[in-house]
């Protein structure tokens, strides 16, 4: 199917045609096929849950992390309805598997660049939920002192170099950060996460070419949730997607099921090790599904409710929970993970609610050193 043959919404029932043969490993049950393309198989019964030698300790940690992300965002969405979260937020509900499986494989001093849909990545890199929630509230003590909000959360202390309000803008920044690490002979790497919408922007091509030409230590992760804001990406995208485009530049790339945390974790771990070993840039295209709308107030009426319901049943949390169950983890332990996450985020919410506004003088701080607005009536 070419883009010109695919008006908005067309091809919904077409089988997934974007898989790249080389390195395509998204056959793990096909449970979480992108965009609801295979609704008939989207259930836990057919998912490949019986994983031999499952590292239950590691996967339980991923499970807890995913619940923390889910609880953070559900708390934030509710707080926005209350008028406490002020600006737009872009939830990643349903996409937590990518954040957990990729970011948990990074060292604290590795660098991460994220997107406007970046709460999960940021939490997974180690930023604190209380500070992040205060940032969403625009309060003092927020990750960025209340000056950025949801779309501009950064925590340089944990190597999180920023979410970004401009789609794809993090890609050139990421390759530059990787170039600096290379100049410094550091053994650190950069991970750059972007969505499927970003691959149609010029900086995607420019950044991937750049990383390949300079042989930089960067792992690109296309978190493909099937939607470019509120339009199905498939209808506005020529060709087979991010991995195919990377491969056209000679960059190793693979397509993976982003909701299969076990497989994605192993693949990300290997990719990160290869990048760290100086093997050059790589790309992972992780297919997932955005259960929420584009923003927290987007009802996402542009897709059928059955599609969302089917995907909800096989979201990465449900799938990993079922796999852990099958591996002998008690249901109580799984329930405890959710409860602990919800308690943590309730506390973050209470803290943000009680936090003061920033001092008005902060509006004039951190603009620039030369020509500092505080030094003159500019």
């Amino acid at each position, binding site marked *: 199917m070419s883009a010109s043959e695919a008006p908005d919404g067309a091809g919904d029932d077409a089988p997934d045609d974007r898989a790249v043969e080389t390195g395509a490993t998204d056959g793990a049950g096909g449970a979480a096929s992108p965009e609801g393309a295979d609704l008939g198989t989207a259930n836990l019964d057919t998912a490949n849950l019986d994983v031999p030698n499952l590292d239950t300790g590691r996967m339980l940690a991923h499970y807890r992390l995913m619940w923390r992300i889910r609880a953070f965002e559900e708390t934030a969405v509710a707080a926005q309805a209350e008028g406490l979260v002020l600006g737009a937020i872009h939830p990643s509900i349903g996409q937590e598997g990518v954040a957990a499986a990729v970011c948990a494989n990074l060292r604290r001093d590795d*660098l991460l*660049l994220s997107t406007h849909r970046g709460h999960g990545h940021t939490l997974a890199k180690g930023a604190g939920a209380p500070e992040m929630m205060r940032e969403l509230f625009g309060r003092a003590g*927020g*990750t*960025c*002192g*209340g*000056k*950025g909000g949801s779309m*501009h959360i*950064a*925590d*340089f*202390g944990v190597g999180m*170099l*920023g979410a*970004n*309000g*401009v789609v794809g*803008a993090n*890609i*050139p*920044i*990421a*390759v*530059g*950060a*990787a*170039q*600096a*690490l*290379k*100049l*410094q002979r550091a053994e650190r790497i950069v991970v750059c996460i972007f969505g499927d919408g970003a691959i149609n922007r*010029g*900086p995607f091509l*420019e*950044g991937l*070419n*750049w990383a390949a*030409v*300079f042989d930089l230590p960067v792992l690109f992760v296309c978190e493909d949730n099937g939607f470019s804001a509120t339009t199905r990406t498939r209808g506005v995208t020529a060709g087979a997607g991010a991995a195919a485009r990377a491969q056209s530049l000679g960059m190793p790339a693979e397509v993976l099921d982003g909701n299969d945390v076990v497989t994605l974790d192993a693949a990300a771990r290997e990719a990160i090790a290869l990048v760290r070993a100086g093997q050059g840039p790589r790309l992972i295209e992780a297919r997932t599904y955005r259960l929420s709308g584009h923003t927290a107030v987007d009802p996402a009426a542009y897709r059928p409710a059955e599609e969302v319901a089917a995907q909800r049943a096989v979201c990465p949390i449900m799938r990993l929970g079922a796999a852990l169950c099958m591996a002998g983890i008690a249901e109580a332990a799984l329930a405890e993970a959710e409860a602990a996450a919800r308690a943590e985020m309730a506390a973050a919410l209470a803290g943000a609610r009680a936090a003061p506004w920033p001092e008005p003088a902060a509006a004039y*701080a*951190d*603009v*620039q*050193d*030369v*020509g500092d*607005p505080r030094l*003159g009536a*500019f």
Partner: protein
Amino acid sequence: MAGLRMSYLEAGRRALIEEMERDASVWALGEDLGRGGVFGQYRGLQEVFGPERIADTPISEACIMGAAVGAAMTGTRPVVEMRFSDFALCAVDELVNQAAKARYMFGGQMRVPLVVREPIGMWRSSAAQHSQSLEAWYVHIPGLVVVAPATPADALGLMKSAIRCDDPVVFMEHKNLWALEGAVPEGEHLVPLGRAEVARAGDAVTLVTWSAMRHVCLTAAESLAAEGIAAEVIDLRTLWPWDRDTVLASVARTGRLLVVQEAVQVAGFGAEIAATVAEALHGALKAPVRRLGAPRIPIAYAPPLEDRARVGAGDVAAAVRAMLAPGSIPA
């Protein structure tokens, strides 16, 4: 000041060499740098510093600028070559939304210490996409420092200060000045950012200008002197922050301000100076403030058409005479 003389182009090259020798975190990136850059500003540098620190990039303005932002956030001091300021428009998101805003929107967690070299100005029938002077756009953006040197000494001293600055600096060299020779002090020469220079003293009128128009104004001032009119010429050198103290002190003395810019006059930086002076010195003015700049037309290729966008020394002198004519209202 000893008698070193060098070209404007060589001064910028020397500044980069000195700063790269002084600080291993300084590096440069841009198109064709390995072959010296499009004007020769980087001649021989890759042989000295290697291809990692004098990096030849693809023709990817957005990625050149964006990569510099990421590299600046990660402990290095990149010097970005944009070739022509016109091409930097392909990298406006990276400069305006990313470089200029990152420190602020991330709550001061880091700085973005980079210099972006954007050659400006009319130069040898280069037409509409290789001749513009868009400095006012960048002055408008909080977070940016904007520099436009006019002499070899300032090209050297301001470039060195720009590289040492922790803010993103837009460094606008004028293409028609590359070959200009001038005296440069021996030894370490730093020119502070934000400080104007009185290029010629006078008490009848204050000409405020920058970049190549400094030389046009000095030529005009010379011919006016022959008529007994002493024009003071102030070269701002840095447009943001601009040296209001020097300008206001001069106009308070002369009572007359003429701002001269190569850029389109409408909404140019001259308007900011004129407005500031009018607000601050209204009662002290002996004539209305006056601006000279290009008409709001694209710059053409053919010389007789290109000249329509050019402010010449004759135009400056005529404007001054009109301002000094008793009882006359400037056109």
